[in-house]
């Protein structure tokens, strides 16, 4: 009888994934297993594959998870073959079932508690050798790290269905993974090695591919300070702004006030900013 429903679409979108919502998965926000939403913030993320036919479309896979299976919803989110994210259920789902217990950084998923204490992700892959494209693998790790970050978990707070129960082999196969990450397999079915999965989650969580944005020049900082002074006088905003770090006006300060307006020639933006502020002033 849980009440926590997760904003899966926003989390996936913020992670850079393409989110797909159609009439097939609409209503995912309040969809859940019979026990409803999560009773507590989920402790981790379980990885699966659907073992679906290679001819099965992503939407057909999702349709099975949402209404084809009498114990729907099956899983919380599904990644399509190209890494698109299909939200299935914001609440607890029916996907992992009997298995465990499994330890995570914030606690232990109890025996048979995977559905109600973990977020479960399916992937439209046959699991017996269908290639996992680099794009799909990147999406899986991006999603895993994003959902664990949102939940306040560590990046390594993951488990595969096969590691949770001997009934399963997913995610697999290791040999079918394309791209630079090459997981070992831990059984004859090609199930990905959990240590390798966790290590890659950690590596990606601590590596940023975002290029460095150059800091403001002193001249830009001076212009920005003058602009701030002018704007606070125009709209009566309280106080003089000070840099949070006590240093010269710099990138974090600028980013907080919309980098796109101060990274270029400020003079050309000034009238636009003032117009917007005046509009706000009149609106209030």
């Amino acid at each position, binding site marked *: 009888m849980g009440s926590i429903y997760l904003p899966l679409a926003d989390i996936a979108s913020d992670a850079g994934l393409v989110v797909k919502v159609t009439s097939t998965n609409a209503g995912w926000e309040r969809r859940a297993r019979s026990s409803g939403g999560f009773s507590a913030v989920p402790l981790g993320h379980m990885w699966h594959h659907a073992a679906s036919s290679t001819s099965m479309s992503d939407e057909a896979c999702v349709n099975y998870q949402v209404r084809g299976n009498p114990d729907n919803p099956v899983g919380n989110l599904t990644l399509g073959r190209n890494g698109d994210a299909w939200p299935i259920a914001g609440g607890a789902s029916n996907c992992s079932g009997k298995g465990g217990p499994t330890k995570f950084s914030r606690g232990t998923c109890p025996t048979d508690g995977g*559905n109600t204490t973990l977020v479960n992700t399916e992937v439209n892959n046959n699991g017996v050798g269908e290639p996992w494209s680099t794009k799909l693998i990147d999406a899986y790790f991006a999603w895993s790290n994003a959902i664990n970050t949102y939940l306040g978990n560590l990046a390594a707070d993951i488990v595969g269905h096969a590691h949770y129960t001997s009934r399963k082999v997913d995610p697999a196969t290791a040999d079918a993974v394309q791209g630079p990450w090459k997981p070992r397999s831990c059984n004859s079915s090609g199930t990905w090695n959990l240590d390798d999965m966790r290590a890659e989650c950690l590596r990606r969580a601590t590596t940023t591919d975002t290029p460095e944005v150059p800091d403001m020049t002193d001249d830009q900082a001076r212009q920005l300070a003058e602009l701030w002074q002018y704007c606070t006088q125009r709209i009566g905003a309280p106080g003089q702004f000070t840099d949070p770090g006590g240093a010269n006006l710099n990138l974090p300060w600028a980013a907080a006030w919309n980098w796109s307006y101060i990274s270029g020639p400020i003079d050309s933006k000034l009238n636009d900013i003032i117009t917007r502020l005046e509009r706000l002033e009149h609106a209030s």
Partner: protein
Amino acid sequence: MSDVTFGDWDPADAWGIEPPDEEQATYKLHELRLALDQLVGDRGLPTWDQLDTGAQEMARGIGGVIVRYIIEREPEDATELARTLHDARRYVATSPLPAWDELEPDDRQIGVDLMQIILDWLRRQGALDAV
């Protein structure tokens, strides 16, 4: 590997350790009523989102009756659950409903069958073991 289109599914995957939720019981019952409506030739039962707020609230009340009954009595008998639910509907219905015993046998059976589906659904997911 029970389904060629989704081989990862295993009925044991539905097992859990938490009691039923009133909101989800309400949705499930409405889903079943919609399926029934289609079977009898689409008499125009609205989808959940098409129901107005009052109708949704009333439906939630029915879902609440189901869950409270299950938690308090741990039922095995779908007939008693159907009778209880019907009595609850009579209490909150905007138009008069006949008493359970006055219903046509077929109508009673439909109610019993619906409740049996609900009980089976909860049983498969461990909800009855958790109450």
